[in-house]
């Protein structure tokens, strides 16, 4: 740790000095720039004043503003995030208009199938988790006798246990930048119970949702456009957006739709070689398992091949495992990449692996809490220190998200007061999600020109729509991507919001959309009907 702290004094300005004064390397005066800047005005100053006042006098359009579209970071302009893009903006406008203008639309509500946000669609939180959070939010409750009538006894015990792990029981204090140690212990124990291999709490970095962890890793890995990250296509656009923001290159590998979105090692090799031939150094491989938007669950054998590939090619494996609790088919099971690597006999020295987990998904679906963690293994201590440093600039992740992340990895056990209700709530949600996935998948497969792989896991269906040429021409005339054209028509006709496949990228010339399986069960029949009717009329209008 010492290495980057020594010389604190100089480093703030040292860097500036280096950049500003490339010809003065030999000056070892740490604060040289500062003293330079403080020397009395040189003869160049009047010229500068006049030039700047000219500027303010001559130009008052927005292009002269310090922050305008012409002058913001081009990487910001370049990045895209379709999950909350144009279609969602249209949907929000429609929703506002519906309040006053109900009769103008053939539907009476907007159904958001664009984003994995279960509680916004009526999914109830797990009672035990929320009891503990309420008690930790207002700890004075623990001293009230009436509390025992309102809360389960194990939630009270758990809240005490958690508060005892927080210095001063202060849930309003910044924590260690990796997260509260006691909570990381619980998470590590949960990982160990899941995988059967040891987990170290010092490897856990708690984050505000999984996304900041992904950003942090991209920041470490990417120095320029010469650094590449292998990403699945289709992919969750967090990856493309984060790579664009950090100025790196996305190296695509295509999932094979025909084999249930299979991940082929030969494709990884091909794309890696292709990238190398373009002068790109591939640094990492991102795998989303279960898949988003594609919903496949990788087989253990496939995962072993991925691990070997990363080991052989010296790639960091970025394992997005946020849907680990969302598996809906009996023939598939979630295996963490860490477990797979360890069961192959690969330890810390063999492979660099980052596993991301979130409290936004699973059966808990606590998106608004922004909780998550990454487990970082197989890095040297000097790299680990850098990860810690970057984490520390943001101080820490939010404490209720941290508490919830620990609860998710250490839920009630048999014999606990809340165990039965916890299991009933959990299984109720997961079995309902499984049946919704099945119903929607079957309905989609019945549509003309539509094929849809089953959602083995995660929260999405990603059907392929074989769009007629006439529809593609109409989309081109409207200057929209054909799948976006379809999705907008769907929204305007039914109020159903889905995300065009182009937001996730897809094999050129194929068209998809992503639809969550999250609307409550009683809404599913109406969604199926509206979707079916819409699709039929769309095809009637555009059939070749």
């Amino acid at each position, binding site marked *: 740790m*010492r290495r*980057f*702290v020594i010389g*604190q*004094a100089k*480093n*703030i*300005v040292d*860097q500036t000095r280096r*950049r*500003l004064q490339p010809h003065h390397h030999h000056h070892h005066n*740490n604060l040289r*720039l500062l003293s330079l*800047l403080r020397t009395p*005005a*040189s003869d*160049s100053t009047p010229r*500068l004043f006049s030039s700047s*006042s000219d500027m303010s006098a001559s130009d008052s359009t927005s292009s002269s*503003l*310090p*922050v*305008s579209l012409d002058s*913001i*970071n081009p990487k*910001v302009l370049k*990045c895209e995030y379709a999950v909350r893009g144009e279609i969602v903006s249209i949907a929000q406008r429609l929703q506002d208009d519906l309040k006053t203008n109900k009769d103008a639309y053939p539907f009476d509500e907007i159904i958001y199938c664009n984003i994995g946000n*279960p*509680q916004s669609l009526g999914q109830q*939180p797990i009672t035990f988790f929320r009891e503990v*959070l*309420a008690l930790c939010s*207002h700890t004075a*409750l623990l001293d009230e006798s009436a509390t025992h009538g309102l809360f389960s006894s194990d939630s009270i015990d758990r809240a005490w246990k958690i508060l005892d792990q927080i210095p001063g029981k*202060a*849930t*309003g*204090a*910044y924590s260690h930048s990796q997260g509260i140690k006691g909570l990381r212990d619980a998470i590590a124990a949960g990982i160990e119970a899941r995988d059967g291999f040891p987990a170290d709490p010092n490897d856990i970095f708690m984050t505000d949702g999984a996304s*900041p962890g992904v950003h942090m890793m991209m*920041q470490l890995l990417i*120095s320029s456009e010469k650094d590449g990250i292998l990403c699945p296509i289709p992919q969750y656009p967090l990856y493309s957006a984060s790579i664009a*923001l950090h100025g790196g290159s996305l190296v695509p590998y295509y999932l094979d739709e025909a084999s249930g979105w299979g991940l082929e090692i030969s494709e990884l090799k091909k794309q890696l070689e292709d990238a190398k031939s373009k002068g790109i150094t591939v640094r990492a491989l991102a795998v989303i398992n279960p898949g988003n938007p594609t919903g496949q669950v990788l087989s253990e054998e496939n995962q072993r091949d991925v691990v070997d590939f990363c080991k*052989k090619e*010296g790639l*960091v494996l970025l394992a997005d495992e946020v849907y680990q609790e969302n598996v809906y088919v009996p023939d598939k099971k979630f295996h963490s990449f860490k477990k797979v690597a360890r069961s192959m006999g690969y330890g810390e020295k*063999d492979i*660099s692996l980052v596993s991301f987990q979130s409290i936004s998904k699973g059966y808990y679906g*606590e*998106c*608004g809490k*922004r909780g998550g963690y990454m487990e970082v293994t197989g890095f040297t201590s000097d*790299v680990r220190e*850098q990860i810690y440093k*970057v984490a520390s*600039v*943001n101080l820490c992740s*939010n*404490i*209720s998200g941290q508490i919830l992340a620990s609860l998710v990895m250490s839920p009630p056990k048999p014999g606990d007061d809340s165990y039965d209700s916890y299991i009933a709530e959990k299984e109720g949600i997961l079995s309902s999600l499984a049946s919704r996935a099945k119903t929607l998948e079957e309905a989609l497969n019945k549509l003309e020109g539509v094929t849809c792989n089953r959602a083995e896991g995660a929260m999405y269906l990603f059907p392929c729509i074989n769009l007629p040429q006439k529809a593609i021409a109409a989309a081109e005339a409207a200057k929209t991507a054909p799948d976006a054209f379809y999705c907008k028509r769907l929204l305007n006709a039914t109020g159903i919001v889905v995300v065009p496949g182009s937001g996730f990228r897809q094999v050129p010339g194929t068209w998809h959309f992503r639809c969550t399986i999250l609307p409550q069960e009683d809404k599913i029949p109406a969604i199926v009907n509206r979707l079916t009717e819409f699709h039929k009329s769309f095809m009637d209008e555009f059939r070749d």
Partner: protein
Amino acid sequence: MSLKALDYESLNENVKNCQYAVRGELYLRASELQKEGKKIIFTNVGNPHALGQKPLTFPRQVVALCQAPFLLDNPNVGMIFPADAIARAKHYLSLTSGGLGAYSDSRGLPGVRKEVAEFIQRRDGYPSDPELIFLTDGASKGVMQILNCVIRDQKDGILVPVPQYPLYSATISLLGGTLVPYYLEETDNWGLDVNNLRQSVAQARSQGITVRAMVIINPGNPTGQCLSEANLREILKFCCDERLVLLGDEVYQQNIYQDERPFISSKKVLMDMGAPLSKEVQLISFHTVSKGYWGECGQRGGYFEMTNIPPRTVEEIYKVASIALSPNVSAQIFMGLMVSPPKPGDISYDQFVRESKGILESLRRRARIMTDGFNSCKNVVCNFTEGAMYSFPQIKLPSKAIQAAKQAGKVPDVFYCLKLLEATGISTVPGSGFGQKEGVFHLRTTILPAEEEMPEIMESFKKFNDEFMSQYADRFGYSRM
């Protein structure tokens, strides 16, 4: 062993260059000592609840109810929650689509942004538009988002005060931009001299840097000064002349410990100046729930308000915010509560006022005890902490101490602070982490230790310092300065 993708050498250089002293060597050593059983007084971070400040009761009640909304259906809920907290919880839940467990709009809940806009309007006397207010996971996230939009490459410079809160230097490093420092004048109570600014900008420009933004921290961190209205006018005029966007870090606006210069927002001063400036100068103001008498650091709640930022740029900022999906919802509710606290006549009003006044008045007394304490020490001088949460005394280190530091391979103020930590358990941050003039050394402490412990802390500081100064006393006088 196969080659590693992420060894130290191949890391992004911007990451390696970034420094963040608030959680650096001193903090790590303090944590080690704490593990060994030594009593540590953490004054390194403005983290009031960690030092025993109790959270305000009312907001915690409201948020607890929002965490467990099923309580609202329980007929006995009134036994442990006051009616106004219950009503407020229902109000905030009605602003969400799915309670605390659903992502909100990426800019934050529209209803809370409206409450923030109303607060700004009440504070400044000028309208505020909720569409130009984005809620964030703490103010730091907002600063990072904005700097990310501003900085294109190392030719883009950001004017930052020195001493500064290292969030700015760290973020500028991470984003690969250039920090253009301007000095605060310690002998002028950390005043900001616009002539210095002009020189800083001219100098940077002559070296090919495009200076794009200016940061002010008001009240100051680590320096504790409150900017005067006249000074803010000069700064805004300067930003207008030089075409700079002003980033106003106003997170300590509730923390004022003197009456001559109450907090005045940059937005109000800008609006007071009228057209054309009020329509031209681009301003982004930051606020948080972590500071003030709230001190809810662990919630990670904040906002920024944009003034004179063109709509299409606002859309880009929105897009980047949307990649992070949404700020955490419980902190958004804390923010709503902070900007619309209980009103006279509400059941919880008296308690709320008692608690918040108690905290602020005690902080004011502690600011005094601390700065007086420092000024009674040998070779230490300290400006009064007019606002914020920190004292930033100058330590006039004898050259023998500087020699000893060099031998130990330490920066002199790091050397001093480590010795202080080992001797007293007081965990501070060396001034070098914030930037300071050459050959001048400081440390930063918060004024947050409990009031009753304060005299003892200052006594043990004085004892350590005076012994240190005797041990390293030069033959001819104490200081190089």
